[in-house]
């Protein structure tokens, strides 16, 4: 199962055309968003706008958009390849829309500032620079990071497609020089109170975080903020850092820096379960840490964490709750319930399940945040068989779904769904399409995450609300309704505004829980209640 098929016009009218612009460089996200703009024009069946990189040329071939003109391109050449109905449009119309879009972007971006043409000239033009943020195509990223580290600058490397060998070499260099090299594929960090890339606006405080999981880190920081405390530093490591090959170099570097930081009183570490040898190194540091350490190695070894004198957690929210309680000198225990009283939760479940018909038995969990999807899989997998692109066991891979029927939980930000299109946290289109293609009359409950903050779409709650409205309308034609459950990862300080986002969702009858863990737990209870019959 890949991305849902596009609605196509009749193929016999379509002509394949290409437009080339030499030496015109634009970043991939801009071009992916632009592709979608052009896709919406009348008479366009399919279109790809990209730089002439090997990845993009492969994609053009896979989409049936390649022509011989593309073969001679360099990565500095831009192409527009499209299947169009020439009775309705032309490549000139597409080019004009392309220029309009870029002109509008330039106005918003305020491109009047001086822009040096290389990292070395930027370093010269900005005395005192201390961080380089790299989000260029992965194949070129390592060389720039190398240069930044050589110049004594810390690095946040957002780009993916950087080899493990390069990652190891760059991190070894960073550690040698006492620098941060957060990444590759590092989506979130908050340094000195300033969110970088995808991060939420949270208050400053005494809790320091090192995270190898992007939305997992965001969820913990948001929950800490909601509980009234704040963050000293939030250091990202990239998802591969705790694998055997990298050895946790940046997790250890970050951990030790927070131990030495006088503004940090308590440290939270977040990752998927590390390689055993890496976990052991981290436990050794935890054992001697003079500051309390809370560890959420999502689904990891609880006894090993306790043996290291650290505090284990059962969810991202639980990590935040324990961190805050320990910081305040309060007693703590695993948080397994809900913020609302249990009786109230039961009443809501009864009310919601009463909407369903007996054949509405399935879950559709559509996540934009990878770690949030991962947490959902771990918590739901205890009681239910869930098919997924991140399955708990190989036989539960989405490809094995029998006749399309069964519970489904998807991480829509995974590579297979984002090829040639922006991540669903930036552009909600992928999830909107999955609402259309994967929710039907057998769906009983839909579970979603709504991630706010810097980098994210300007109104993710609005996009979900619109999909829910459409689904309810479609199901109403069959005399049916559906239960929709969400959590919002964000704060009232985020530009999308937590409270406004919750109102938007609740106005469409979405049940909004205060954390991903609670939304998942609620969904679990709904599914269990559905099994008893409606």
């Amino acid at each position, binding site marked *: 199962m890949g991305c849902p098929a596009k609605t196509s016009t009749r193929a016999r009218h379509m002509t394949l055309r290409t437009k080339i612009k030499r030496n015109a460089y634009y970043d991939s996200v801009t071009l992916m968003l632009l592709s979608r703009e052009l896709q919406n024009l009348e008479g366009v069946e399919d279109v790809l706008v990209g730089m002439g990189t090997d990845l993009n040329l492969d994609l053009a071939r896979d989409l049936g958009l390649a022509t011989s003109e593309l073969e001679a391109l360099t990565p500095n050449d831009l192409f527009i390849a499209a299947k169009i109905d020439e009775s309705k449009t032309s490549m000139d119309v597409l080019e004009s829309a392309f220029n309009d879009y870029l002109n509008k972007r330039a106005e918003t971006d305020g491109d009047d500032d001086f822009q040096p*043409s*290389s990292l070395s000239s930027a370093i010269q033009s900005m005395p005192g620079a201390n*961080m380089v943020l790299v989000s260029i195509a992965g194949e070129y990223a390592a060389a720039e990071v190398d240069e930044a580290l050589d110049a004594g600058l810390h690095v946040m490397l957002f780009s993916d497609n950087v080899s493990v060998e390069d990652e190891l070499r760059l991190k070894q260099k960073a550690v040698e020089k006492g620098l941060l090299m957060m990444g590759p594929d590092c989506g979130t960090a908050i340094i000195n109170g300033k969110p970088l890339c995808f991060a939420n606006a949270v208050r400053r405080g005494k809790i320091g975080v090192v995270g190898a999981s992007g939305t997992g880190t965001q969820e913990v920081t948001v929950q800490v903020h909601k509980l009234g405390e704040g963050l000293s530093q939030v250091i990202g490591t990239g998802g591969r850092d705790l694998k055997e090959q990298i050895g946790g170099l940046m997790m250890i570097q970050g951990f030790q820096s927070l131990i030495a930081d006088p503004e940090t009183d308590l440290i939270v570490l977040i990752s998927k379960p590390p390689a055993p040898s890496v976990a052991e190194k981290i436990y050794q540091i935890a054992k001697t840490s003079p500051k309390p350490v809370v560890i959420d190695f999502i689904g990891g070894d609880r006894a090993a964490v306790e043996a290291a004198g650290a505090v284990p957690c059962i969810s991202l929210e639980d990590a935040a709750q324990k961190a805050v309680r320990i910081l305040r000198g309060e007693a703590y225990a695993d948080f397994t319930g809900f913020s609302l009283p249990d009786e109230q939760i039961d009443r809501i479940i009864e009310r919601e399940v009463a909407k369903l018909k007996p054949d509405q038995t399935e879950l559709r969990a559509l996540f934009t945040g990878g770690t949030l999807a991962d947490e959902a899989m771990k918590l739901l997998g205890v009681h239910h068989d869930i098919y997924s692109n991140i399955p708990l066991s190989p036989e539960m891979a989405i490809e094995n779904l029998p006749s399309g029927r069964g519970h489904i939980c998807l991480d829509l930000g995974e590579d297979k769904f984002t090829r040639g299109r922006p991540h669903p946290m930036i552009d909600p289109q992928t999830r909107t399409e999955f609402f259309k293609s994967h929710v039907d009359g057998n769906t009983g409950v839909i579970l979603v995450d709504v991630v706010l903050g810097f980098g994210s779409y300007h109104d993710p709650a609005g996009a979900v609300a619109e999909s829910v409205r459409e689904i309810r309308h479609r199901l109403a034609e069959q005399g049916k309704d559906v239960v929709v459950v969400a959590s919002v990862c964000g704060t009232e300080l985020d530009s999308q505004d937590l409270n406004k986002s919750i109102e938007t969702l609740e106005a469409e009858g979405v049940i909004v829980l205060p954390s991903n863990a609670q939304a998942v737990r609620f969904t679990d209870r709904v599914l269990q209640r559905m099994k008893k019959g409606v």
Partner: protein
Amino acid sequence: MSVNDLFKQELKVINLGLKSFQNDLKSQGVTTVQVNWKPKAGGKKNMLNLLGRISKTKKL
């Protein structure tokens, strides 16, 4: 500059890549500069390797 020294300083960021990241930093009052980045040597791998070797030789 060590990580703990960084924690004591004002953050100053050089941004290579997505302009939206720089816009977000600017909106928070962070001093930033955007690099007008494009692949060196037209992105051709054999030329890039050659440039890399020349640059290393210069450093030596």
